[in-house]
């Protein structure tokens, strides 16, 4: 490790400037427009009225939104409950090295590389009772399955799809964590006569803590923003069984074009996310330091 701490150098700003510029262009400008809309009622391009926090109030009162939010939270929690344990189990069972490892890695990662709408399409095809492998055999098994007709079926299908799509992310993170544990730990454990469970409980889990935290927060956030897959699969239906926040917002913004509420809603949405993001960032920081400590030993 280096003997000195990072030197202070204000010139470094010049290196960061390009990033600031292009992100500012694609983030700050739009954000300002959002703020701008959120406090105005746009009757027509030339007639605008300042309405203050009215839209925010309106959004807060919006029942459908509450519904969407509630569904969203349920869904995100369900996602975590399934994907984190499954991901860890998967990582533990993946081979450590050799061609097998590469092959498994690639297969596992594959689902992450599929355009999100195609993921939707795949499951659309997969689940249909008439032509889909899954749907067909569920029907054969005498189970009247239909993700377009039955609300709970739709919900479970979306969950299954998300698990299929994103568990690999958790698995790969956990896998990376596992690979970073020095052999000495396993040797010491075997010498101390530790059981498999003890090894998992006292070595692997603690060492994976950091990456798992990233996994949890990434998954929570991304599932909180989920849009494409359910849009393609169920279009948010039946009814609004699978209408989550992004979907709801999009329909409001693009579909019905009531700009004001949409903007206000966007901001609220944005701040919820921001909150999680803050937590994540601080975790990353603390993780960074623990990682450095670990690298000494």
């Amino acid at each position, binding site marked *: 490790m*280096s003997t000195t701490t990072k030197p202070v150098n204000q010139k470094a700003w010049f290196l960061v400037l390009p990033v600031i510029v292009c992100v500012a*262009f694609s983030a700050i400008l739009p954000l300002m427009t*959002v703020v701008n809309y959120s406090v105005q009622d746009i009757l027509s391009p030339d007639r605008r009225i300042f309405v203050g926090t009215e839209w925010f109030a309106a959004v807060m009162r919006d029942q459908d939104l509450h519904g969407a939010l509630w569904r969203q939270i349920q869904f995100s929690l369900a996602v975590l409950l399934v994907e984190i344990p499954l991901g860890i189990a998967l990582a533990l069972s993946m081979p450590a090295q050799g061609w097998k490892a590469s092959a498994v890695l690639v297969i596992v*990662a594959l689902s992450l*590389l599929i355009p999100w709408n195609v993921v939707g399409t795949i499951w659309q*095809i997969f689940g249909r009772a008439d032509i889909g492998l899954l749907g067909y055999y569920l029907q054969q098994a005498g189970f009247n399955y239909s993700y377009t007709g039955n609300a709970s079926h739709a919900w479970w299908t979306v969950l299954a799809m998300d698990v299929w799509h994103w568990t690999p992310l958790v698995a790969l993170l956990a896998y990376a964590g596992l690979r970073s544990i020095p052999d000495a730990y396993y040797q010491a454990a075997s010498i101390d006569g530790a059981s*498999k469970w003890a090894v998992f409980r006292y070595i692997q889990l603690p060492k994976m803590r950091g990456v798992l935290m990233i996994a949890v927060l990434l998954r929570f956030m991304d599932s909180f923003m989920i849009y494409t897959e359910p849009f393609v699969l169920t279009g948010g239906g039946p009814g609004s069984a699978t209408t989550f926040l992004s979907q709801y917002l999009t329909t409001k913004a693009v579909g019905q074009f009531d700009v004001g509420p949409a903007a206000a809603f966007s901001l609220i949405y944005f701040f919820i996310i921001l909150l999680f993001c803050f937590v994540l960032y601080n975790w990353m920081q603390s993780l960074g330091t623990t990682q450095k400590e670990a690298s000494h030993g």
Partner: protein
Amino acid sequence: MNERRFKKRTLFLIAYLIFALLPIYWMVNMSFKTNQEILSSFTLWPQEFTWANYQTIFTDPSWYSGYINSLIYVAINTVISLTVALPAAYAFSRYRFLGDKHVFFWLLTNRMTPPAVFLLPFFQLYTTMGLMDTHIAVAMAHLLFNVPLAVWILEGFMSGIPREIDETAYVDGYSFPRFFFTIFLPLIKAGVGVAAFFCFMFSWVELLLARTLTSVNAKPIVATMTRTVSASGMDWATLAAAGVLTIVPGAIVIWFVRHYIAKGFAMGRV
């Protein structure tokens, strides 16, 4: 060394791999069928194997132009993302400067922002700038989450390179650019590869912005597909073929970065 245990694990692994591959297999399987076969009979593999669906895609401009468009804006986006991210990541990994933490945090927030939030303003912004329905528009929009990601990953990889190497180079008298390209870049090849891969992937899979900001000239494949679903009734076979073709590029790219993929997903932090 523990046989039974070992078996259990492999069984679980195999089970998962099947779960992971089945849906994909089903789409591939369909892409080689004709629509009649799909709708008339339920078959586990193509009875009359056909390339027809792929032919349609490669011959019908409304299809293949979709791929070309996607590849164009993905490429543009990846290039821009990396060029701006590299110096920034270097700055973050090597120096402390006024407000560095805040900037880094702010960048991350963009990775975490739901695209839906920016949908509306983007629409407005690009319309006013007359960028609607251009590749640039989508590429720019995707910078929103790709640049922060690239910075993040690269910073992770760069922090793994001892700072003494930089200093030695400066002591030897290397100018910064010369050092950066002749010495530093070769050291973080892997990082660049992984970052590029992620930019490619996230830009490639994103639907919402891509669809909203384009209509005809820059219409990406992902959008083409969603519209086909509604338009030409249920042309399952073609749709499946199109789907398969969207997976191929990613599958190819991933093979090259397979050794770093795990580290990459951990944002180079492990």
